């Protein structure tokens, strides 16, 4: 149904679904964290994934990173389907192409390992370079690439001797070490200060250009997504509700939720008086999916139909999709 599947995409995801079982024995409930997501990321493309907290962004990243097994759905890398269960070798190959940068730089580095050790592991595990000297050289190269100069000083530092921004750079260097094609960046800047945040985003953009990387850039900051991404996908309650080119989504948001998001984002540049929000209703409960549109209870435009029947993804133009009955169905 969606034409987002392009063979030339580095990564394609089809009908991705993830359910978590929580509770145990007598009290099992199912969290529908991701509900049939289709998306694709092109070569050297940044796809921004935006959504409120708990909407399933991290879960998508982890599914792609093979930290979780999907409940349903397929993942294609370079057009080839990736099986759910892989042997170690195949998995290693996959990991070589797909790496991840974490949200919290403070907890994504093992506090007991020096930067040098942390960076040496991917090199060793994937046999990127051989010989201790080469490894050392490669590490320094990586550090420099990520703006940690002089590199020699950093190899012998423990994470706690680094600032948040520096730690995040090490995290990026680690992902970079295996020359991946795709980096899943799960809110890599949300724990950082504004100014450092910008540095990191700039670094990521530079690396993309230089190494021909693609990113899945997850954030809840619409402005940040706009700054980074070529295309933006908006998520709500485990569903993709809108996807389109970055400028389109920001300038002409179609889905009511995207519109709301835009309203809520501070934008002093467009006048200091903040926009008024009219919103009622509660955040969705993922253990009890609604029969209709998940956003319907909070949607200012909700009609009868919205709470009865789930809307389908609607193609607006070549690159633009929205899941809403407001548009012709």
């Amino acid at each position, binding site marked *: 149904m969606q034409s987002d599947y392009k063979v030339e995409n580095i990564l394609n995801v089809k009908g991705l679904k993830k359910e978590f079982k*929580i*509770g*145990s*024995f*007598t*009290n099992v409930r199912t969290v529908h964290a991701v509900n049939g997501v289709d998306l694709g990321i092109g070569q050297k493309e940044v796809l921004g994934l935006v959504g409120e907290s708990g909407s399933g962004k991290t879960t998508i990243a982890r599914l792609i990173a093979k930290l979780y097994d999907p409940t349903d759905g397929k993942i294609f890398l370079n057009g080839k389907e990736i099986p759910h269960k892989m042997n170690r070798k195949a998995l290693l190959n996959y990991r070589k192409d797909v790496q991840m940068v974490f949200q919290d730089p403070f907890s994504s580095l093992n506090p007991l390992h020096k930067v040098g050790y942390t960076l040496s592991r991917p090199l060793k595990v994937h046999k990127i370079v051989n010989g201790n000297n080469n490894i050392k050289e490669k590490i320094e190269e990586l550090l420099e690439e990520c703006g940690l100069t002089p590199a020699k000083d950093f190899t012998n530092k423990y994470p706690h001797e680094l600032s948040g921004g520096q730690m995040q750079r090490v995290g990026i260097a680690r992902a970079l070490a295996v020359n991946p094609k795709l980096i899943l960046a799960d809110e890599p800047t949300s724990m950082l200060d504004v100014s450092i945040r910008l540095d990191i985003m700039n670094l990521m953009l530079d690396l993309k250009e230089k190494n021909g990387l693609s990113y899945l850039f997850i954030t809840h900051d619409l402005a940040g997504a706009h700054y980074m991404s070529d295309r933006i996908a908006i998520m709500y309650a485990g569903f993709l509700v809108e996807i389109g080119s970055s400028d389109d989504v920001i300038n002409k948001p179609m889905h009511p939720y995207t519109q709301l998001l835009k309203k809520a984002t501070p934008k002093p540049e467009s006048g200091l008086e903040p926009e008024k929000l009219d919103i009622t209703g509660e955040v969705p409960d993922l253990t009890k999916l609604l029969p209709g549109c998940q956003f319907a209870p909070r949607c200012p435009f909700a009609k009868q139909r919205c709470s009865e029947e789930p809307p389908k993804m609607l193609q607006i133009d070549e690159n633009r999709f929205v899941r809403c009955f407001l548009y012709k169905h």
Partner: protein
Amino acid sequence: MKYVLKRITFFIVTAWVALTINFILPRMMPGNPAQAMIAKFHGRLNPQAIHALKIAFGIDVQKNLLLQYIDYIKRILTGDFGISLSFFPSPVNQILSYAIPWTLGLVGVSTVIAFSIGTLLGIRTAWRRESTSSGIIIPIFLFLNSMPYFWFALLISYLFAFKLKWFPLVGAYSLNIPKGFNLARIASILYHAILPACTIIITATGGWLLTMRNNMISVLSDDYVAFAQAKGLPDKVIEYKYAARNAILPSFTGFAMALGFVISGALLTEIVFSYPGIGYILYQSVLNLDYPLMQAIFLFIMIAVLTANFIADLFYALLDPRVRTGAE
């Protein structure tokens, strides 16, 4: 309710596994009860008598294990543990019924006291963490907690019962007191329980103190305590309503878990003070290969612990709405 169901499931499964272990363990012990019995007769018994006794005692070593197991489960479900070998021909139930009230009374009450004192001290030392008194109290209790308690029991029994004669040396109550339930009897029971209870209380309090103190300190750094302070609530209210109430929750589980240890651990106290209780009976039953008795006591202790756990869990649920209403 779901929570309760869940706990019950755990309770039953654990109990079943424990019962099975309980069945297997004594059978893994070397020697057999028949020989243990014969030993009692100093070898004078004639072979027919041995056979007759075996039947009388229900020591039928011929039966296969599965049948024995089924029999065993049946007995447990009906609450009939058979006849004790070492106290032949008293039924196991009767022996237990003499011992259990004392164990529960002494161990239960003194553990509760130790728990209460320890918890209170834990609250205080955590609240006034930097004070000198905390600095002194903690090492003292660590020391008391590290004493082998039969050793401590011996010392105080020599000193207070034998030398100073302040307390009775042995027994659970005085003999020359009219039968039945009366004040004099209660007084006598309490009087006899003082020394044994003291050893348990003095040596056990430290553990609870530490547990509570650590919990309390954790809780004190929680935001809701600071918030309570910001609300301008009086210190006592913060200390007890906000901090201690939350900090005590994990202690309950610990308390339940500890109960089994304390019940059986009281064995040493029982020996030193010749206090009635199941610890010593268990010890004897093990030494005499008295399967029926051993199993019953083991079972009793496990059930006691499981029940205590169960109650602690319910308590927990009562005090912690997160558990009750099934929050993640």
